[in-house]
């Protein structure tokens, strides 16, 4: 499998915040979820790889450097940014007529179909849309030129579960239609990722601390609930993080079956991505 996106040693420094040596690859046909708490560096990572903000490091799309082939690369990307869009004073109809100037492959009909499918009013200004409607419009705008890669910053925030599901279906179909495509999706709604992502990356304080296939995470990670004495028996190398609760210890392990056999623990709870994220943020080593 070839990588559609390759990021190596990405660094970006702000006052009081730093992205430190971020490296990852996004293979063809894959949906990669980028998770982390607010301020962890998800949006900065996305803006850096898109060259929206200046950063240091190697960033390649389709084997080409973003700084050298920026326009060629961006013509094949569909982007949804959480907090920015074309204008609040435009209507979907006007957006349709503007976007064809930016993309040679812009499909007016496809955009109109999405607008109808999402039940968005064609002649209403974006400023009068609800946050869910705005997000649907952003998604319709991002996918109507048949991009090769979708980069989505919090695309399901502000949406109700039904619409969220519809949108996740669109993402699934996007990959199913052409398996050379990829999606990078940053979100804090981790349940969405359990359903659609192939890989999960976790970012904490500007550093990628976990990057694994979703199936591997859901299969191998687990939570041991035990007493203080039992916890003391578990070797430090066998767990990732622990949390001291009121009456027990909760321990995140990354190899459920081995731990079960090694320590004779009868039940280890399944860890959801949200659980893992909470351990990574609030847990102790």
């Amino acid at each position, binding site marked *: 499998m070839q990588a559609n996106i390759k990021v190596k040693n990405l660094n970006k420094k*702000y006052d009081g915040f730093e992205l430190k040596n971020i490296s990852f690859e996004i293979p063809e046909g894959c949906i990669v979820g980028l998770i982390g708490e607010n301020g962890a560096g998800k949006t900065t990572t996305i803006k850096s790889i898109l060259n929206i903000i200046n950063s240091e490091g190697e960033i390649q799309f389709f084997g080409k450097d973003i700084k050298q082939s920026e*326009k060629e690369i961006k013509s094949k990307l569909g982007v949804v*940014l959480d907090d*920015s869009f*074309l204008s609040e*004073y*435009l209507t979907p109809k006007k957006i349709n007529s*503007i976007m064809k*100037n930016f993309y040679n492959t812009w499909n007016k009909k496809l955009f109109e179909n999405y607008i109808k499918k999402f039940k968005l009013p064609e002649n209403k200004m974006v400023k009068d849309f609800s946050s869910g409607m705005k997000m649907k419009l952003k998604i319709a705008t991002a996918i109507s030129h048949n991009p090769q890669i979708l*980069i989505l910053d919090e695309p399901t925030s502000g949406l109700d579960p039904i619409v969220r599901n519809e949108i996740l279906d669109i993402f699934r179909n996007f990959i199913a239609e052409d398996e050379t495509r990829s999606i990078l999706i940053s979100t804090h709604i981790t349940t969405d990722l359990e359903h659609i992502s192939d890989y999960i990356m976790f970012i904490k304080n500007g550093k990628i601390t976990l990057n694994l296939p979703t199936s591997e995470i859901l299969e191998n990670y687990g939570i041991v609930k035990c007493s203080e004495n039992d916890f003391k028996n578990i070797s430090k190398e066998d767990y990732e993080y622990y949390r001291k609760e009121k009456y027990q210890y909760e321990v995140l392990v990354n190899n459920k079956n081995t731990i079960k056999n090694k320590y004779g623990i009868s039940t280890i709870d399944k860890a959801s991505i949200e659980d893992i994220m909470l351990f990574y943020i609030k847990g102790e080593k």
Partner: protein
Amino acid sequence: MKEICGLIKKDMLNLSSYKISLLVMFVCVLAIGGAGEEMWKYIPIVMTTMTGMIALSTFSYDENAKSDEYVLSLPVNKKEMVIEKYILVISMALIGGIIGFIITPIFVNILNNIRADNIINVDYNSLLYTTLGGIFGISLILTIQIPSIYKWGAEKGRIQMFILFFIIILLALGIAYLVTHNLGININENAINAFFQKFGIAIVICLLIFMYYISYRISYKVFKNKSNI
């Protein structure tokens, strides 16, 4: 070029919500024209100032929607974004001037028919200089304000622009005072007028090109090196 057209289209469609402002502008022009015999001269100045300021307001639209970030995710680079803004403001200032130049005699003639007791004769030479003066005045503001906006944003940039503008005026007045009072140089106004009659248009055009070019270079450099858009 297609991308620049797209950006211009976006800004023009944004400005279409300015219908009421345009109506107000037309009412202002009517009021100025109706005010008296010499007031017609101000019509092109009002037109260029208003169209120039309307064009400048696209920066506020962009800032509100944080659209610079979004536009940079499209196949558009920073250079094209800055060029587009200059094309837009220059075109708007020129269009304002041209419309002002055309509508003034039409408007004055209509007024002459309504108020036959107050016939106004338009001096076309004077009208041309007023129009050029209007374009030059608004261009001076725009060429200072656009780099300020790129540096400090639409809101803060406006304050910085007024400070800069104030400093420039103070400097100009200071130099003029020094030349006429302290250095005792006598200014021959007739010679200056004759000089401007002969070379005025060429000088204004050259100055405009120079001002916009320098302003563009500064804006692009500021925008290119901006770490947080």
